[in-house]
């Protein structure tokens, strides 16, 4: 038997989660600014000794396979790329959330991180399609954080998965979001939104977390981005990388085509790139040893 989570309770859960570090926050802010450059990223990382050490450790790890050691932060960041650096910063702070075994979804340890990483790569690939004005780095970051709400509510959903699945099959529930809302009074996009507010995340990322399953409701000027994350999420799930029982039990909003033109052949290419990039990135992240695996 599940109980509804009250507003106070969800706030309590959020308070128990560590805050993002100031440098992770600044990095997120920087990616939303279309005029930022690599110098800004270097400046932020430089002031955070732990993050600097992590970035250097990862760039020099066996998985990256450089012949000569990189000792300069500038070169390390330019080699790894902004996305990976932001991923490291956010991933380290929120490791407790990304690492959580999503028992309420019957997910396995590491599923959320892998799903988020795949969604991030796929959202970025969608954002780079020629007809769009979305900043690919921003799409990556938004994709990385889109399902963070699942970590907050998963425990409350324990033991519900098989019943939810049969109710979706009988069309008692429209999709997994309806189930979350019915069972505990809050769905994972809204839980994630509450966390985004507490973390003071940039508006674009907050909007993507909140509406990644219902992109038509996103603010007009951010809708393209939110649709990119929506598609990225679906691509990750189709690739067999979900977070457990809920995978693929969400609706695809076909109106994406008003914002994003995507032929089936282009989608196939995106899916292939996502597979290749995911294997590379996952290796780099796990290379640092104590990372989010």
């Amino acid at each position, binding site marked *: 038997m599940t109980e509804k989570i009250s507003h106070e309770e969800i706030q309590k859960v959020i308070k128990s989660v560590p805050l993002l570090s100031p440098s992770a926050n600044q990095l997120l802010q920087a990616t939303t600014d279309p005029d930022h450059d690599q110098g800004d990223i270097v400046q932020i990382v430089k002031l955070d000794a732990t993050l600097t050490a992590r970035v250097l450790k990862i760039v020099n790890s066996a998985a990256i396979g450089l012949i000569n050691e990189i000792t300069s932060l500038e070169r390390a960041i330019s080699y790894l790329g902004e996305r990976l650096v932001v991923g490291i910063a956010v991933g380290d702070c929120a490791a407790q959330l990304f690492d959580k075994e999503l028992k309420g979804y019957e997910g396995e340890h590491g599923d959320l991180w892998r799903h988020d990483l795949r969604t991030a790569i796929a959202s970025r690939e969608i954002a780079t399609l020629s007809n769009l004005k979305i900043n690919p780095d921003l799409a990556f970051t938004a994709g990385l954080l889109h399902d963070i709400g699942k970590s907050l509510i998963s425990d409350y959903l324990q033991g519900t998965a098989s019943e939810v699945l049969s109710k979706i099959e009988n069309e008692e529930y429209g999709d997994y979001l309806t189930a979350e809302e019915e069972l505990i009074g809050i769905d994972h996009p809204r839980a994630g939104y509450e966390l985004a507010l507490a973390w003071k995340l940039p508006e674009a990322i907050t909007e993507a977390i909140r509406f990644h399953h219902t992109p038509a409701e996103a603010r007009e000027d951010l809708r393209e981005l939110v649709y990119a994350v929506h598609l990225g999420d*679906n691509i990750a799930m189709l*690739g067999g990388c979900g977070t457990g029982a809920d995978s*693929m*039990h969400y609706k695809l909003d076909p109106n994406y085509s008003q914002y994003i033109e995507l032929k089936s052949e282009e989608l196939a290419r995106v899916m*292939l790139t996502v*597979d290749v990039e995911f294997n590379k990135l996952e290796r780099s992240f796990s290379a640092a040893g104590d990372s989010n695996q």
Partner: protein
Amino acid sequence: MGQIILGVGDYGASNRPGEEVKTFALGSCVSVILLDPKTRTVGMVHVALPESTINKAKSLEKPGYFVDTGIPALLVEMAKFGCNPKGKGMVVKLCGGANVMDTNDTFQIGKRNGLAVKKILWKYGMGAVAEDLGGNFSRTVTVSVDTGEIILSSPGRSNWKL
């Protein structure tokens, strides 16, 4: 007990008693399972996309990634175990090919994979005797070399047989 684990785009075969051939989390991907009663060999390929024309280089590096190169590659592999290179006498079973809910034509990758598999098999004169394709859930597949029994699993569901 030995296991052969196949990732996306991998193919493999086994005739070793007690061994299992397994692949995890098929979303829109399809697992083509070939059972050869004569040599007691089990083969499987985990294909991700219908056509290798979208990336020839990838199909050379990983033929199992695409339906049109993956099934021929599996047959070549199984021939090493003494199976008929054209698949004669083999039993075919298929699973995977899932879609997300309310999907549109473009996103029916799972359905396109299933159709492409059947088309290639038809060219070899082969047809599936059992299939569990479509739906909106991911599947993990385990095949026993001893019995040819295929067990499917998915989070939140009880295991079932194919």
